[in-house]
């Protein structure tokens, strides 16, 4: 060994001594901070004693300390995607991974928070350490926020499950031996003012959706234009996000119209002599004649915009289960700002249609009357553009369209529909809050089906006889 080798060994020995002092100091500092905060969750087990691992350099000298400094290097986050209500279990495709953090900056400006909807699905955070598998201490604190911090529970290893029920901005800190990583988050409260609800109906079947030709008769109250839909509902919503003004992150939140069909008793009666029979509108499992269980999603075609939630469509490709931008059925209009956050007016409208073949395929009798209804459950829904796989529901309203009426038999050239006298479209008088304590919940937890079959696509007429 030359002089140079001896110098290296001496330096390594000095370095090891300094590392040991620093670690001891870090441990004392961490313990003191934990006691003061009273909210930290310490590692489930004491830190493991330094052990030699495969690939570790072999110290040529007893003075050389082999243990590396332990540190937390990253927090990753994952949110459980909204799942189907009916089996098999399907989940909205993860379009976006939640942003991870390696930052030690607590500020919302310097360490950009992830934006989520309050009340959204289970959120799991995992700390990565060096060396891997070292247990960290977790702490969650309000950040530019006077709300109390959400609770969390420790799961396996360095993973915690974080509550999503609180409002505003928070910092989640993972600490290990005096090192830390901070992951900031904003839970935006979609606060529906149910008392502001106004529902409006169009009972007229006079417009263009009610039509007849030689082969089919269609009938509907209203038209797909604002002010003319069969059912429309307006409600005020206050969005409260992060920061002291409640405005941080609001641009990431999209409100939308969720709707499920909840029952379908629509029946065509073929009572012209000498035939007879009925035809029952039936939602079926895709590609089968098996009736699908209710509720069934009532959503339109392809996704309205990039980065929005998508589920597989029956006909192939994907479709959005929540309508956000189609001005024919949903509009979100900014209102004058309130004390905190942002105010919007949420409007939705729908004009469902019934339709039957004019002749019974077996008895050849003509369509003469219609009974039954389509029932729906509509909701103010939302998602964050940073987590479009998690769709939330905040307030719902049930409504029904009754299609009772008569249809002209031959000698009329076409089967013209005439609605029965009376009210055809009815609903609750106001939106009802879903999971008020958390400002809403995941759409699955709220009992909404977002996956095919669709109410407006997978339909057949089941004829009797």
């Amino acid at each position, binding site marked *: 060994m030359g002089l140079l080798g001896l110098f290296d060994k001496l330096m390594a020995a000095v370095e090891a001594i300094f590392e040991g002092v620093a670690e001891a100091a870090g441990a004392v500092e961490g313990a003191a901070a934990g006691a003061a905060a009273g909210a930290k969750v310490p590692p489930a087990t004491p830190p493991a004693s330094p052990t030699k691992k495969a690939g570790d350099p072999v110290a040529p000298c007893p003075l050389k300390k082999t243990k590396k400094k332990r540190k937390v290097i990253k927090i990753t986050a994952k949110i459980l995607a909204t799942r189907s209500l009916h089996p098999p279990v399907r989940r909205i495709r993860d379009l976006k991974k939640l942003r991870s953090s390696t930052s030690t900056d607590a500020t919302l400006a310097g360490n950009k928070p992830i934006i989520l909807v309050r009340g959204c699905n289970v959120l799991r955070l995992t700390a990565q350490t060096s060396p891997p598998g070292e247990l960290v201490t977790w702490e969650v604190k309000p950040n530019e926020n006077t709300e109390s911090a959400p609770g969390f529970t420790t799961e396996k290893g360095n993973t915690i499950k974080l509550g999503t029920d609180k409002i505003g901005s928070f910092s989640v800190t993972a600490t290990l031996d005096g090192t830390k990583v901070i992951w900031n988050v904003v839970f935006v409260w979609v606060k529906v003012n149910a008392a502001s609800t106004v529902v409006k109906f*169009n009972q007229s079947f006079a417009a*263009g*959706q009610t039509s007849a030709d030689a082969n089919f008769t269609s009938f509907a109250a209203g038209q797909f*234009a604002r002010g003319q839909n069969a059912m429309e509902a307006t409600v005020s919503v206050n969005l409260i996000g992060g920061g002291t003004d409640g405005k941080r992150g609001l641009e990431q939140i999209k409100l939308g119209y969720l709707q499920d069909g909840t029952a379908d008793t629509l029946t065509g009666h073929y009572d012209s002599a000498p035939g007879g029979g009925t035809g029952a509108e039936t939602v079926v499992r895709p590609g089968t004649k098996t009736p699908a269980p209710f509720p069934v999603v009532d959503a339109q075609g392809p996704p309205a915009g990039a980065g929005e939630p998508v589920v597989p469509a029956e006909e192939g490709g994907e479709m959005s289960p929540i309508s956000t931008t189609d*001005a024919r059925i949903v509009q979100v*209009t*900014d209102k004058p700002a309130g004390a905190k956050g942002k105010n919007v007016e949420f409007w939705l409208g729908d*004009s469902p249609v019934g339709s039957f073949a004019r002749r019974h395929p077996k008895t050849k009798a003509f369509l003469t009357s219609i009974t039954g209804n389509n029932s729906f459950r509509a909701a103010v829904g939302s998602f964050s553009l940073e987590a479009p796989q998690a769709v939330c529901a905040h307030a719902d309203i049930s409504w029904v369209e009754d299609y009772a009426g008569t249809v002209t038999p031959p000698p009329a050239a076409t089967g013209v529909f005439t609605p029965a006298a009376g009210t055809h479209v009815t609903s609750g008088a106001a939106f009802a809050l879903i999971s008020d304590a958390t400002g809403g919940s995941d759409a699955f937890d709220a009992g909404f089906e977002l996956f095919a079959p669709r109410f407006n696509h997978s339909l057949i*007429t089941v004829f009797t006889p």
Partner: protein
Amino acid sequence: MHDLAYDLTLHLREPGACAGVFRIVERVPGPSLPGWDEGTLRCRVERVVNGPLPAAGRMVSVGYSRKAEPLSRAKSSVNHWNLLDLAAGDLLLLVCTPGADPTDWNARSGNQVAAADDPAVAGLAESFRLRTLEKGSEPQQLALLAALRGANDVARHFALEAICRQGAVSRREACDLLVRALEADALADPDRVRFAGGLASAAVFDPREKDDPVNRAAVAGLAATVGRVADPADRLTCVRYLASCVRQDFSENPGEATRVRAALVHAIGPVPPPPLADTLAKMAASNEASDRDRAAALAAAWQTPPPAANP
């Protein structure tokens, strides 16, 4: 490919929006996904309503997209292509944007019409004209009021949307136009209810302005509308609009909020006028808890003494 909207006025603000009456010469189905019928309509321009469409008599191509199955088509009527026959000879009134080629057009809104002089054609032309008038000018105010009071469904619909959701006029002007339109005898009840919705919309009723003259006029206009519609269901809807205004969070100070609510309802009168009182009595006895809450809130506001007038 775009859906087709039934609402003819929905896409007027899009860059390059044009409108015309087209006669279908031929429907040419193209490659489609299973369950879909997509292709091109070869059309002859019958009449140019607005914008640089090819002249009448020229041929253009317009893409369409609809469901293949008639039953599924009827049920997916939000895309209006699904409700159109698209037979050779049919006339379509379409709002289009330019396509890739001068003869290709993207249809955004449209409907079948019986003739090139269908009232919807004139209504659409008037809607385009209303867009060109100077904001806040007297000609604009007169034209919007005429459209609101007029018999043309398309122009009336456009005028209401322009006032309530496109910022065509100021808040005060919006309130004034709607109140004056609601006074017209010839207005149908469904339109009165729609205009009442306009008075309660964010374009007119602003809670930050508390009981300012515009908010007071909006509330008074809503109350007057209750007496102008015949159907009890329409009266109920108007009172719900009224309640949605009066029950706003006007102030974090409960006393101030109570004062504002009292000032608003007393702008209607010292007590609810008879048609409104009848509806409130029915709401108070309703099975709907939210309607009972509305009736109670309005009654409480009336029971609060009116604030002293400003000196």
